[in-house]
């Protein structure tokens, strides 16, 4: 009996020693590569998001290394897969911080996974930049959490400006998905901005994700004779809404947000979405030299047109590299300050500055659906 106790105790101690003894020295060292962690959904429900951001980030890091790295040291990207699982986002963030000793974290796209991982970055005092989590709460976790994209409320305001100023609409109807935080946020800010600009919201109708029948709401909207209809939902419902609206003889343009950014919008909507507009992070056919160069290089490397996630991943990595160079050190708190001080960084998705709430302030683009494709319409500056 006692013998067994001793064996057990010895085993436990050996385990504990083995676990603690694994401390390495890399991130803080002065000569080796600077490690950057990326946690992403490379597999699972939203695998395309993670793969795109990883492609974008990898491209940026390779470019920087080709120019001789930053602070005289090359960058090393460590990507970990979280299988699109909420709690695994937290473990991967911990693994990157504790075992790989990364100087900063990039990730995640889904707001829920960013929310799960952000407290770990905050606690370890390692800056984290989410490429594409648009929910306002993500950066409220703490002062080490940033994002490279604009937040939901901003897009709502952008489309209100666009509707009022570019289309010249006076009367707009809203049809939003009341079960999606995203859609509710966009609708709220659209309403506020549009009314403050002297416009009138003539109808405020709602639906739920998964609905396939919108004729009741659309018939009501038709009766109010709007100049445009704001539909801040995801592509599946947006496509169906456009189809049914045209069937009911509604010819005014439909307006949407970045939830429309998918080829599925065109597949489902067909000719019905022609002439509609939506706000997005970037336009692949923009006339900006930065965008053109990025799209060409991306296509040469990965054989496809980059989506918004790839662009945002590329820009998130770019913001980090820019801050590393300005901070002159990989020290967490100093790097955090440098990221917070980001001003007019020339990103592919626009010129980026960090606002005091650690959200990227930048322009949005409006995309027009024309001839069965997405086309750059105009840029709506940050305000």
């Amino acid at each position, binding site marked *: 009996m006692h013998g067994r106790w001793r064996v057990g105790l010895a085993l436990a101690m050996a385990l*504990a020693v083995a676990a603690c003894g*694994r401390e390495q020295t890399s991130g803080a060292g002065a000569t080796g590569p600077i490690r950057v962690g990326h946690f992403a959904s490379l597999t699972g429900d939203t695998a395309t998001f993670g793969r795109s951001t990883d492609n974008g980030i990898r491209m940026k890091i390779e470019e920087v290394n080709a120019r001789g790295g930053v602070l005289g040291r090359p960058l090393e990207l460590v990507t970990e897969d979280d299988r699109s699982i*909420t709690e*695994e986002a937290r473990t991967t963030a911990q693994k990157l911080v*504790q075992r790989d000793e990364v100087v900063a974290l990039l990730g995640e796209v889904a707001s829920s996974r960013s*929310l*799960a991982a952000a407290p770990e970055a905050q606690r370890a005092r390692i800056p984290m930049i989410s490429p594409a989590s648009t929910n306002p709460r993500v950066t409220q976790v703490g002062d080490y959490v940033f994002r490279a994209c604009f937040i939901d409320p901003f897009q709502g305001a952008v489309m209100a400006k666009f509707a009022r100023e570019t289309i010249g609409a006076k009367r707009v109807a809203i049809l939003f998905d009341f079960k999606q935080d995203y859609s509710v946020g966009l609708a709220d800010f659209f309403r506020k901005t549009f009314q403050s600009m002297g416009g009138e919201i003539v109808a405020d109708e709602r639906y739920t994700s998964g609905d396939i029948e919108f004729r009741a709401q659309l018939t009501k909207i038709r009766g109010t004779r709007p100049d445009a209809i704001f539909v801040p939902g995801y592509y599946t419902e947006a496509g169906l809404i456009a189809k049914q609206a045209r069937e009911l003889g509604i010819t005014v343009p439909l307006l949407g947000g970045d939830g429309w950014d998918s080829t599925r919008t065109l597949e489902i909507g067909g000719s019905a979405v022609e002439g509609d507009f939506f706000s997005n992070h970037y336009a692949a056919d923009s006339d900006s030299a930065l965008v053109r160069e990025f799209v060409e290089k991306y296509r040469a490397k990965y054989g496809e047109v980059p989506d918004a996630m790839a662009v945002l991943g590329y820009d998130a990595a770019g913001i980090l590299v820019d801050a590393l160079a300005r901070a002159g050190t990989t020290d967490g708190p100093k790097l955090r300050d440098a990221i917070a001080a980001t001003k007019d960084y020339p990103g592919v998705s626009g010129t980026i500055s960090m606002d005091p709430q650690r959200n990227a302030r930048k322009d949005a683009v409006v995309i027009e659906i024309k001839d069965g494709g997405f086309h750059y319409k105009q840029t709506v500056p940050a305000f």
Partner: protein
Amino acid sequence: MSRSGWITVAACALVLLALDVLLPRVLNPYYATIVIRIGIAVIAAVSLQLVNGFTGQFSIGHAGFMAVGAYVSAAFSVYVGAGWLEAFAAVLPGPLARVAYYPMALAAGGVAAAVAGLVVGIPALRLRGDYLAIATLGFAEVIRIAILNVDAVGGARGFSVAAADHPGADLRFEGFGTVYAVALVTIVVISRLVYSSGGLSFRAVREDEVAAASIGVPATRVKVEAFVVASFFAGVAGALFAHSEGYVHTNSFAFLRSFELVVFVVLGGLGSITGAVLAAAVLTAAPELLRGLGEWRMVLYSLLLIVTMLVRPQGLLGTRELGFDWLRRRLG
């Protein structure tokens, strides 16, 4: 319980409290998280073993009860408990205040899940085999989607277990003494339940429901009992999950989680508590241990499952227990 039994329990409690305070200071938080997850998986797997392994009812909706426990205890902590914890922390040192507070949060989660288990179990357990499996799966999804529609716990945004208006109350824990104490209690309670003379009725129902009923075993009642006890511990596991993660989202309790728990139970051996413990520990750690393999890691994980089931179709331990005679002698 005999005197030596009490001494063992007291010694275990002391060791666990020491671990709770010491280990977070010496162990890398990444490993600490995995060790905590293993403890929680053990609790959930052992509780499911009672239903699937010992009573022979094929439930594939266990994650639904974890969800109830997680959300109820999280809401309890955020809206009610944070004030109490703050009051405790004012008079007691940090770890002790939490030791005093956690039983309440865990009980809230456990009791809520047990009630849910009763409500679901009474109608569902009149079904058998495949029908029961589908019904439990359905109920788990109903629970998950119902939570998704409650705005007070964040809905689709998820729910952070932190009370902004009580800065003195740190609701999260990193020490795993608490988790392992609960795991120990779960194992002891369930093993004493199934290996007692009254516990024979569980196994009687598993072997042949009609024969059991013919000799006076109230089959439906026995099944509901097993279901309620299992739901209680699943709720406690959920409560621990919520407080150690600090953020809960309904995605964590989707049917894949239920399925994972069934895998723990089947792989460990239907009808073996230590088997469930072993399988839960190995399979929770495996995805992290295999990280070095990059994108092949889940392929290897799946292969591991397939090979184990081919080589040992009865599960790792079959219906045997590992070293339990000793522990039972000590506690009995």
